[in-house]
Every structure is written in structure tokens, then in C-alpha cells.
């Protein structure tokens, strides 16, 4: 009944994976070390910085605050899943490039995943709503101004507001 190793079956960026893991393996480490998807960054490892934010069943969550067995049967999307297979960037990524929404880039994957879900739910988001939605992701380089501008641009392109 109690297990020391657990078989996990999950879909990451549309690809099916099946692995046997220790239950204590954090989902962030599973994604980076077992699957080799190092776009998901690990900052604080206690749910404060937001760098490891991924989508689980289309909702943003902290990958460092889930154990890997909890992903069994669920669909995950990481930053690697944003761009098209031919390399064409997602409109969010495009907007971050256009507005210089990153400097060192460490926090960027978590912000992109958080904002992907946010814009889907708030296609007409105002700057105030954007700033509140960004509050769970820390950036130590930019002062947030260009991040906010990048998200506003992405909102106008994706959500179709002016």
C-alpha cells in the first residue's frame, strides 16, 4: 500500500512520458533532470519566486510545490511547449522580445507560463490587473516596467483590445 517508488504517467507538451520515481521527487526536478526540459527554472524551491511556474491541466502552479506522483494522469505544459515546432514564437514570447521584457531571463519562463493562462482568462486585462497577476513572479533585473509593457502588448495582440 505504501510505496517507495511510484510509476508516473504524464503528458508534457503533448508528449507522453512514463517513469518510475521516488515520491519525494519535486515536479520541477522531474521536468529538468528526468525529462531534460531545463527551460523550467528553479529559484527558491519554496513557492515564493514563481520561476518554476508551469501549467498543470492548463492552470499555472508552482512545480516546486508538487511531488511528481501528483502529476500522474495530468497534462503539463512548460515553456518549451510555447513556440511552434517550426520555431515560430508564441505571441507572448514575441511581445517580450519586442518590448525587452527580460534581462537575465531567469524568471522569464515562469512569467510566460503564468501570463499565458492569465491572458486566456482575461483577454481584456488592464495594466492594474496585469500588475496584480504578475505579483507571484519575482524578477530581480527589470523593475517590471518592460515586463508589464510586454504583457500589455501581448494582451492587445492576443485579446484584440486596443
Amino acid at each position, binding site marked *: *500500500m*505504501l*510505496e*517507495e517508488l*511510484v510509476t508516473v504517467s504524464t503528458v508534457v507538451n503533448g508528449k507522453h512520458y512514463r517513469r518510475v520515481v*521516488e*515520491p*519525494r521527487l*519535486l515536479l520541477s*526536478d522531474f521536468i529538468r533532470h528526468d525529462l531534460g526540459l531545463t527551460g523550467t527554472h528553479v529559484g527558491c*524551491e*519554496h*513557492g515564493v519566486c*514563481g520561476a518554476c*511556474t508551469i501549467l*498543470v491541466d492548463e*492552470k*499555472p*502552479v*508552482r512545480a*516546486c*510545490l*508538487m*511531488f511528481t*506522483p*501528483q502529476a500522474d494522469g495530468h497534462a503539463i505544459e512548460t515553456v518549451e511547449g510555447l513556440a511552434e515546432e517550426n520555431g515560430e514564437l508564441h505571441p507572448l514570447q514575441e511581445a517580450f522580445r519586442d518590448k525587452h521584457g527580460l534581462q537575465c531571463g531567469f524568471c522569464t519562463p515562469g512569467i510566460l507560463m*503564468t501570463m499565458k493562462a*492569465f491572458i486566456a482568462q482575461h483577454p481584456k486585462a488592464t495594466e492594474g490587473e496585469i500588475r*496584480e*497577476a504578475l*505579483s*507571484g513572479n519575482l524578477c530581480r533585473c527589470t523593475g517590471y516596467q518592460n515586463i508589464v509593457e510586454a504583457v500589455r502588448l501581448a494582451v492587445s495582440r492576443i485579446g484584440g483590445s486596443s
Partner: protein
Amino acid sequence: MKPAPFRYAAPRSIEELLALKAEHGDDAKFLAGGQSLIPTMNFRLAQPAVLLDLNTLPDQNFIVETSSGGVRIGALVRHSDIETSETIARSHPLAHEAIRFVAHPQIRNRGTLCGNLAHADPASEMPAVMLALGGRFHARSAASDRWIDASDFFLSIFTTALEENEMLCEVEMPPLPPGSGTCFLEVSRRPGDFAMMGVATVVSLDEAGRCAEARIAYCSAGETPLLAPGVAASLAGEEPDETALLNAARQAAEEIDPPGNVHLTSAYQKHLVAVLTGRALRTAFARANTSASQ
């Protein structure tokens, strides 16, 4: 850091879960949203030998209205479920208003209401909301099944009336009294931060427009969420005009005696108690007026 090794089970029924808990006792921890437990495990402040994961339980993600107009919320209902629940927005706008102050969206997508309440962080919003609403908590173990009033549940910092093998498996919010209005307010440094002070109010008006009943609860005010029964008693029977509201605000700052912390002094917290109490009561009475005139 990485958590210490543990053994893991993801049972398919509450009975199986509670039997495992009875077998392993203090060595075992329940894992629901994990948004407080996993950080402490990552720091190795907590090193449970066994984790019992609730997330695979069927039918625990319910928000249902009772025949009396109350609402029952199951063990796997996440903060974001409450945020988007039209039932709760209509029946208990206080809970709906307060839930947005709980951490960040990423945390709310995972954390559960029952887990949050069982964690009993005195800075947390929802324990104060449950005190103000007069909520009831359903605790179960393999050997017991009982309901605990919110006012008897929170004993100290991170300490509740739950016995060793009991799980908080459900919360019930009773219906609001007729002619009532509610309001939740807090001050924090940034959205999603812990409250420097937070207040949850439920008031109701009688037919003459006087305060029939008031319940005022605070978070970040002491070792547990706190009620201000003295303020509530003074308001009862009074017309809620500006004088009464200012007196209530002043009285609240005398009745509530927050300890202060590394970020803010006790005196500043008292100031926040006065300001937030006045504002929250003003809004709650205005909402009660609106609901009474409909």
C-alpha cells in the same frame, strides 16, 4: 533543498485513507494542496515518514448548497474553485471577497480551503472569515466523526482542535442572517503577501435599520484568528451612523492587541485595526441596506 525520503500512498477512498492514518499515526501527514506542507518539507523542517495524498480521492471536490441555504465545501476544493464559484459569490460573498487575498493565483490553483484551515496560520485570511461566518468543521478519523465550531477550532499558532488522526474533510458555512451585509478588507505590502492586518465582518439590520447582530474577526492579530465580541455587543441595537462606526473602530483598537512583528509595530497594527474596522463596517452596513431594500 530537497525533501527527506518518505513512503507514499494515494488512496481511492476516505475510509482507506483514514485507516492508513490510524495505522501510522504521527508519522503520517495528509497531503492536500501541499502549498504549506511542501515548502516546510523542502526546508526539512518537516520530515514525515509517510505522506497520505488526498488528491486521488473521488467526490471530495464539492461545493453544495444545503437545504437551509448554507454551503458545504469538500476537502479537495481549491482556493481558485471558491474564487470562481457562482454559488459562493451569491451565498457567501465574504468568502468570495476574501479568497482573492490568499497568496498568488499559482498557489490558489493548488491550495485547498480545508488544508488552509487545518494549517491554522493566524495570518491567513480564511480562518478569520470562518470565525466571522460561524462556520462548522467536519473532522473524521477511522474511529470518530464529529463537527467542531470555528470558534472552538483554532487553539494557537498552527494548532487546532483536530486530534492526532483526524482529518478536516469538510467545512460548512451556515446561511447569512436575513438583512445582512459583509465585507473583507486587509492591508498587505504587496498583493499576495501575508496580511499586516485583515478584518472580516458580518452585520445584519433589523426592520428599523438598527444593527441586529455584528461579527467582526481579524487575521494577523494574535496567535489565532480573533473575534471582537465587545465591539459586536456595543453595536447591537445601535443605529450604524458615523458616530457608532467611529466608536466601534476606536473600541476595536482597544479590544484587539496585536503583538507586532519584525515588519511592523504593535501600535501600527492597532492603527490598522481601527481604520479597517471602520471601513469594513461602513461597507458591510451599506451592503446590508442594499440587500434589505431589494
